[in-house]
């Protein structure tokens, strides 16, 4: 029979899952506002301004608009796949968070109880994230195919080819991190980077920065952001795989994209920038969760910053970078890392 402890743990886990899901669900709202604001300021404009002070209520207005918009399913579309494709895109983006730790433990000040800031301490955490993260491509492929439109189909095709090409480089980068930290467990990976900022994987010279560059370029391509968002390139494909989508289903795709961006930011921090460890030992009075959030926010800002700095690559350039630069580079880098670890 289940004991009281087990029941308590299940309840705690359920509460944690619910809270985390709510947070992730709400996250795209501030992120869309932030992205438009940053876009505006980089282009010497103001960005959203009229709804609320500094346009801060703009995402709510957008959400209401998307909710009440007519949900159009094209006549010749594959109805069932068209309807479930946005969900297929969204579910893996959330499922990834089962393995992502947001910190070690957190002591609630008044009660004194300790709460674990992760859902599961998975032995194969890094592999799980790679595997589940790769699944969200199905939403895009199936959505593109089911729309029965040439732009959507081309977007889906580009997306699948891009995903296959860059997943290799990203997995190699993760393998490099696993070699440096000696574990597939994300908590262990963070623990191995404790101490000062000199023990971060990013500063494991000379291979650390190379792994980080490979990881960053590869994951930007995998989450379909500029400069590699060829599968939703409005210049040539009108809107890529979600051309035919509108209303709520469209917003599911956008939700998946923003959550993926947050995931990649978190992973960059965990893999290369020491997770919730403080950069200097004397700064460790600041709680770890604050360090973690700060680093993640920097990366989120960085992705938006890059988006409004670089132009979009051509498709052949994308494939060339993937196959002719990143993959050979990562192979060489694995060799060097192995030699350094002997």
């Amino acid at each position: 029979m289940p004991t009281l402890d087990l029941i308590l743990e299940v309840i705690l886990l359920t509460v944690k899952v619910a809270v985390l899901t709510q947070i992730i669900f709400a996250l795209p709202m501030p992120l869309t506002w932030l992205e438009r604001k940053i876009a505006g300021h980089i282009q010497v404009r103001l960005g959203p301004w009229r709804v609320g002070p500094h346009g801060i209520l703009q995402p709510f207005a957008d959400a209401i608009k998307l909710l009440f918009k007519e949900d159009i399913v094209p006549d010749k579309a594959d109805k069932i796949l068209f309807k479930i494709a946005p969900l297929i895109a969204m579910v893996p983006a959330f499922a990834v968070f089962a393995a992502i730790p947001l910190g070690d433990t957190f002591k609630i000040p008044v009660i004194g109880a300790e709460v674990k800031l992760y859902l599961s301490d998975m032995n194969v955490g890094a592999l799980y994230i790679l595997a589940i993260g790769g699944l969200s491509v199905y939403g895009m492929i199936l959505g593109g195919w089911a729309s029965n439109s040439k732009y959507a189909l081309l977007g889906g095709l580009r997306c699948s080819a891009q995903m296959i090409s860059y997943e290799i480089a990203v997995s190699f980068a993760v393998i490099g991190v696993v070699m440096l930290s000696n574990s597939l467990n994300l908590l262990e990976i963070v623990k191995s980077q404790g101490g000062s900022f000199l023990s971060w994987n990013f500063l494991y010279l000379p291979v650390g920065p190379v792994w980080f560059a490979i990881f960053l370029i590869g994951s930007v391509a995998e989450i379909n952001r500029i400069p590699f968002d060829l599968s939703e390139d409005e210049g040539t494909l009108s809107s890529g795989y979600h051309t035919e989508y509108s209303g709520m289903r469209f917003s599911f795709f956008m939700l998946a994209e923003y959550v993926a961006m947050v995931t990649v930011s978190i992973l960059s921090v965990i893999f290369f920038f020491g997770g919730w460890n403080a950069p200097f030992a004397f700064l460790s009075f600041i709680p770890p969760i604050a360090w973690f959030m700060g680093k993640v926010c920097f990366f989120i800002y960085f992705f938006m910053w890059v988006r409004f700095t670089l132009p979009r690559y051509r498709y052949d350039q994308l494939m060339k970078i993937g196959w002719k630069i990143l993959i050979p580079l990562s192979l060489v880098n694995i060799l060097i890392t192995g030699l350094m670890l002997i």
Partner: protein
Amino acid sequence: MEDGKKGLDIFGLIKSVLFTDFVKGLVITLGYNVSRSITLRYPDTEKWIPYRRWRGMHTLNKDANGRELCVACELCSRACPTQCITVIPMEDATGRGIADRVAKVWKVDLVRCLFCGFCEDACPTTAVRLGREYELACHDLSCTVKEREGLLKPQPVPESFEGGVVVGARFVRTPGGISVVADLSKSRKRAL
């Protein structure tokens, strides 16, 4: 390598490995990000007043005694390349105009007008001027043709006001329509 040089360009290689161009771009965009926006808060709080040479909606002027300068000579309608100005003269000795001949009808079709300013040039008495009114959008076609009575009214921005500045403004919503009321006392130069 584009210029056909043989051999390895070591310096260029190092530059591309260190992503120098990318970092340069990032620095530039970061600079813009923290710089002041140049957006005009039109129509809420600010409005752009054009220079005097701006060619906006037509105005019909009066002289210092309040008499109409227009003598209905029809030169403006002749000069107009799109034939959007209609002038019908009539006799009037009551001192409405500076001469006995005044305009019975003077109207301009703003949909056809291309604001070239030929009417202004052709006018012998400087009665026709292209003013600084540029908010010409409206809900139906009734407002596209401007009659003499409307054009004779004094302009919200007087001729004497030196333009080319951003002035304070107020956005007014009334049942009759929307308008932006400029407050000429507060003005600033536009950034850039």
